[in-house]
């Protein structure tokens, strides 16, 4: 028997989610268990064993396990990484501490800077300097490298990062220093800035090297243990990981560059939404994933998420840009805002206005309605008051919700202070959180020069389908798509993502003065590296597609934009086409471009991907739950008032079914609220496709 079944595993903060696909039987099955924070591999292996048992598969029938983890991001947030030493260029010991020299909050006199991952006494300097062209201004002091490495090891560091000035341009000093350190201390984990992020800008590059070193020993131990446990279980298939950019990679890449897993989990959701968009034939999509604490939005054009090449980790204030550590890693470009089911509503002292979030009641104590000690009204509480949720049938009836306690708190804490009715206060929570999400989405699209009206919203996550239609209305979107299994949709991303990686090199120059032979050589080098990496991730080298791009700007500008390149082997003859490509990218983003200013390139990128897998959801045998038929329930809409809504069992809906709002479509982990005037069709993949009334007919 050929091993073809695959399992995706998403290790989250609270739960570890599993999804299995067995193409032989076209079977999709899911599982969930509590995460085991001390050793996440325990829950993983336990969950896999159970899923295999439930689906009757022997461990040997597993082709592969694809894995996403929050371990890297949590290690940085909780500052539980190892003791790292940094070897850096003389005069630049403090570049990771000095940073960008800005205050992330203009009005807070007492703000706190994100602490560096390497304290100053473990940052040691080495004489030696290259210039912007890679020419040596001062030779590397090899004795100083040895002496300082010895000193760091004597201090008890577990890993060493090496970050020298202009190593993005020429890595020879870093490489030589690495040889010296390895010779003297063969056991120590070593990260070179030129290897992990060969990009110009020392603060970001060296920070990335330090972060990689900081998480590496822990990830090595974890991945080794997981491989061993899977082997013990009898799994002979390969273990892969999900990178932050949405590509599948080998365990070796994860061990070498664990920092590339920083957004491993969230990337899966975007990959799942991309796959849904491809399947449903949607070209312009905003994916919207709303859970207990946050909402994440991601732009998906032509079936692929936008990506970006920097990410901020370990923020002092979670939703405040600039309050974290900048990393140069390829990530799916999504926004994350403090708007979730647990977001807390309050009356602000200064202005006397109502605010919702970003503070969250989290899972503990959670919303008031959970009855676990929560006292402050949350978004979930308002959804309950408004009839969006069924007090008797939350989480498939596993949890009864306390509606009376919620009503009391909404009255006492909000309605009275605001001089509005309790219904209006509850509706206000929903209106404010929806507006917050809409504003963030508008801004995200505005930064890319896009108009939300052209987009379809794909909604998932526990709270996503509850709020999706309202969010779409605020954004003037016409259509909302809600996949089956709001809690499962995200994990499918592990199974449909392609083996993929992003490589980067830097070479700065005006287009007309660039040495194109050098550029072509960089691409040849990157393509070779990509082939090795993707083969390791299970790809057939012959199927790898390459997309070259460069970060360019007008000379003198401080900001680059990504520009697709027509070829991986550019010559001077391609110059007009490359220039035109820059102008086109510039126009697309900003609506205009200056024709005759000189243009320069800084960073050269290569995106390499093999084809992703597909899962045929038409006729898929989905192992699923059941909800009871409940007739009708009253729900409050903004202008239509209280409406009797049909309560519909999501699992009973067959492809082709149609109905009109107002309606509440219930499944185990979520409820989709369909407003009056909207029409719903169930498509061939069992997605709910909701067409919203145009503003003139809107009655919500």
């Amino acid at each position: 028997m050929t091993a073809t079944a695959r399992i995706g595993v998403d290790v989250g903060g609270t739960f570890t989610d599993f999804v299995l696909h067995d193409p032989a039987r076209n079977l999709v099955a899911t599982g969930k268990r509590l995460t085991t924070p001390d050793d996440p591999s325990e829950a993983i292996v336990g969950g896999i064993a159970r899923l295999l048992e439930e689906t009757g598969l022997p461990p040997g029938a597993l082709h592969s396990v694809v894995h996403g983890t929050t371990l890297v991001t949590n290690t940085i947030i909780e500052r539980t990484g190892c003791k790292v030493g940094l070897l850096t260029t003389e005069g630049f010991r403090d570049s990771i501490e000095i940073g960008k020299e800005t205050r992330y909050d203009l009005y807070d006199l007492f703000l706190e800077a994100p602490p560096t991952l390497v304290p100053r006494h473990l940052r040691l300097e080495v004489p030696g300097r290259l210039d912007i062209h890679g020419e040596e201004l001062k030779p590397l002091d090899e004795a100083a490298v040895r002496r300082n490495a010895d000193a760091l090891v004597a201090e008890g560091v577990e890993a060493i990062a090496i970050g020298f000035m202009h190593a993005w341009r020429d890595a020879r000093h870093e490489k030589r220093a690495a040889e010296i350190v390895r010779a003297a201390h063969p056991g120590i984990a070593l990260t070179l800035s030129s290897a992990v992020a060969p990009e110009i800008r020392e603060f970001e590059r060296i920070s990335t090297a330090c972060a990689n070193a900081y998480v590496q020993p822990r990830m090595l131990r974890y991945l080794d243990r997981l491989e061993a446990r899977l082997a013990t279980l009898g799994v002979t298939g390969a273990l892969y990981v999900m990178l932050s950019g949405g590509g599948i990679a080998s365990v070796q890449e994860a061990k070498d560059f664990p920092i590339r897993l920083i957004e491993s989990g969230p990337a899966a959701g975007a990959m799942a939404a991309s796959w849904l968009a491809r399947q449903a034939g949607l070209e312009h999509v905003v994916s919207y994933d709303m859970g207990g604490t946050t909402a994440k939005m991601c732009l998906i054009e032509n079936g692929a998420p936008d990506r970006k090449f920097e990410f901020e980790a370990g923020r002092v204030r979670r939703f405040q840009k600039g309050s974290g550590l900048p990393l140069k890693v390829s990530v799916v470009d999504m926004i994350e805002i403090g708007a979730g089911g647990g977001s807390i509503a309050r009356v602000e002292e200064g202005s006397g206005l109502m605010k919702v979030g970003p503070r969250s009641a989290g899972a503990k104590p959670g919303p008031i309605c959970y009855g676990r000690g929560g006292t402050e009204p949350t978004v979930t509480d308002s959804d309950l008051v408004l009839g969006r949720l069924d007090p008797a049938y939350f989480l498939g009836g596993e949890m009864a919700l306390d509606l009376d306690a919620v009503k009391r708190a909404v009255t006492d804490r909000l309605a009275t202070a605001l001089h509005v009715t309790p219904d209006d206060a509850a509706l206000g929570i929903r209106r404010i959180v929806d507006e917050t999400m809409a504003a963030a989405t508008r801004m995200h699209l505005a930064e890319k020069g896009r108009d939300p009206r052209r987009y379809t919203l794909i909604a998932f996550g526990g709270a996503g389908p509850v709020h999706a239609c309202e969010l779409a209305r605020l954004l003037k979107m016409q259509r909302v798509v809600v996949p089956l299994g709001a809690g499962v949709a995200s994990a499918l991303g592990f199974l449909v993502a392609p083996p993929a990686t992003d490589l980067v090199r830097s070479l700065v120059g005006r287009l007309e003065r660039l040495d194109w032979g050098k550029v072509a050589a960089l691409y040849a080098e990157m393509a070779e590296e990509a082939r090795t990496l993707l083969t390791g991730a299970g790809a057939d080298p012959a199927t790898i597609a390459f997309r070259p791009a460069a970060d360019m700007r007008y000379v003198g500008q401080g900001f680059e934009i990504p520009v697709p390149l027509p070829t991986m082997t550019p010559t001077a003859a391609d110059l007009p086409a490359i220039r035109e490509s820059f102008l086109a990218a510039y126009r697309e983003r900003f609506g205009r471009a200056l024709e005759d200013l000189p243009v320069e390139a800084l960073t050269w990128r290569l995106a390499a991907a093999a084809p992703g897998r597909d899962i045929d959801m038409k006729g898929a045998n989905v192992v699923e739950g059941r909800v009871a038929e409940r007739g009708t329930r009253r729900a409050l809409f903004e202008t239509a008032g209280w409406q009797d809504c049909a309560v519909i069992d999501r699992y009973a809906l067959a492809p082709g079914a149609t109905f009109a709002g107002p309606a509440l479509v219930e499944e185990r982990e979520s409820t989709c609220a369909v407003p009056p005037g909207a029409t719903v069709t169930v498509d061939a993949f069992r997605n709910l496709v909701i067409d919203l009334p145009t503003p003139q007919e809107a009655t919500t």
Partner: protein
Amino acid sequence: MPDPDAFDPISLEIHWSRLISIADEAATGLLRTAFSTIVRESNDFATVLMDSNGDSVSENTGGIASFSCILPKTTKTFLERFPAETWRPGDCVITNDPWLATGHLPDFTAVTPIFAKGVLVGFAGSISHSPDVGGSLWSADCRELFEEGIRIPPSRLYREGKRNDDLVEVLLSNVRVPRQVMGDLEAQVVANQVCAAGVAEFLADTGLPNLQGLSTALSKRTDAAMRRAIAALPDGTWRSVIEADGFDEAITRIACEVTIRGDTMHIDYAGTSPQVDRGINCVMNYTHAYSVYPVKCALDPFTPRNEGSYRAIAVAAPEGSILNPRFPAPCSARQLTGHLLAGAIYKALAPVMPDRIIAECGGAPTMRALFSGMDREGDRFSQVLFASGGMGASPHRDGLPTTAFPTNVGAGSIEAYESVAPLVVWKKQLLPDSGGAGKFRGGLGQEVEIEVRAPEAVRLSLLSDRRDHPAQGVLGGGPGAASVIELADGTRPHPKSRTTVATGARLRLHYAGGGGYGDPAERDPAALSEDIRNGYVTPEGAARDYGGRHDRG
């Protein structure tokens, strides 16, 4: 006009956040289309949405706080020159007049009317630091405004969508990089259009006929929030005097008197130095903006800003003083004076609200070194090195190292800097012992060493202070280290002048440290030991400033 009291607190919140997000979208439009690095890398811009009176309704979240405070005033002067009924869709009025706008020529203010259903409902405004305005580049040593660049009085850049080509030609004939200057002005026009379109859509969505009722309701909220914070302080008058280097013998003396009466605050600078014939004069608009901003930070940091935020605060400075100079005083480097005001106000108020203020900042005023000349390819370059001194310590923690306050201009990468200028930076490092001693230590300044590697000598313009007047501590805290600018041969160029630097020369800059907070004797010994271990404080410095009571172990 709809009754301002008709808005419930939920709708107000929703409308307000939508209007702030419209100002933010305008800022995004500006930021992404601007050409100048100074806008992009240092956030030197602002966008403001105003009602039909020119009162601010919302402001972008991340821009320069003082700009958004000034823009409505500039708009009102535009309305005096161009009465409301004369504005047409597609107009855009600009100026860079220091007295009408932001205090020096490099900043352009652009204002566009917003129409809904054919009726003027408000104004979209933006301010941005231009890549060039001709004259003396950016320098502090001019004797008159006219040397500092071209001055454009309030003029229509666009009239009903048609560009005023005569104005454009006059302007562009007077600047060094015309395409970039025009590109940035167009970016401001784009930003204003984004804002105007957003407001029109907002009014259509909400069914509101105009912004006036909402504007009144929102400014009542912000006014009330500020008044509540002021009223919580005791009535009385508090005074401070601070000094800075000024220009040559003319030391700058800021006399500050803050009077709190009920829910109002009056800040008066009587007794402050007279204006000088060098470019460090600070016009009243700028004086006002840099007086109310620190008060807002201390008393009401979390309420968003609009016209109401500062109504409870009055600011006065004698005409002819360095804080309210008469035209045509030179004022290109007005920040060297204006940035001092936060320190003066906090010093005055320290006895009343010791838990809300910070010590003087090493980065106030900012220190700038502007290099210009030719690179090895024969291309002209002109690059400001952005870097900051240390922030003053607070009652809650040590001052942030190398961070500017009251401005928030950041620093770029040295590798990127070396990619655009024929300079090599050999060092950019925290300066040990530069933070003022205290229960909480001042933020460290930094040391930067730059070698000129251009084929020929380059021009250097310096805009700095704190050479003889380091940032003072507060409530017993010690001063931060002073600033130093010197060449490798020991010569010290004039700190507010333009000089020539030979190729091969090395310039060393010390950015000043922040002042300390509270008695150094109260510093937590563990914190001091950690400072010594990390080299923020040397053992010698500890012995000197903390009386040797640390653990030398």
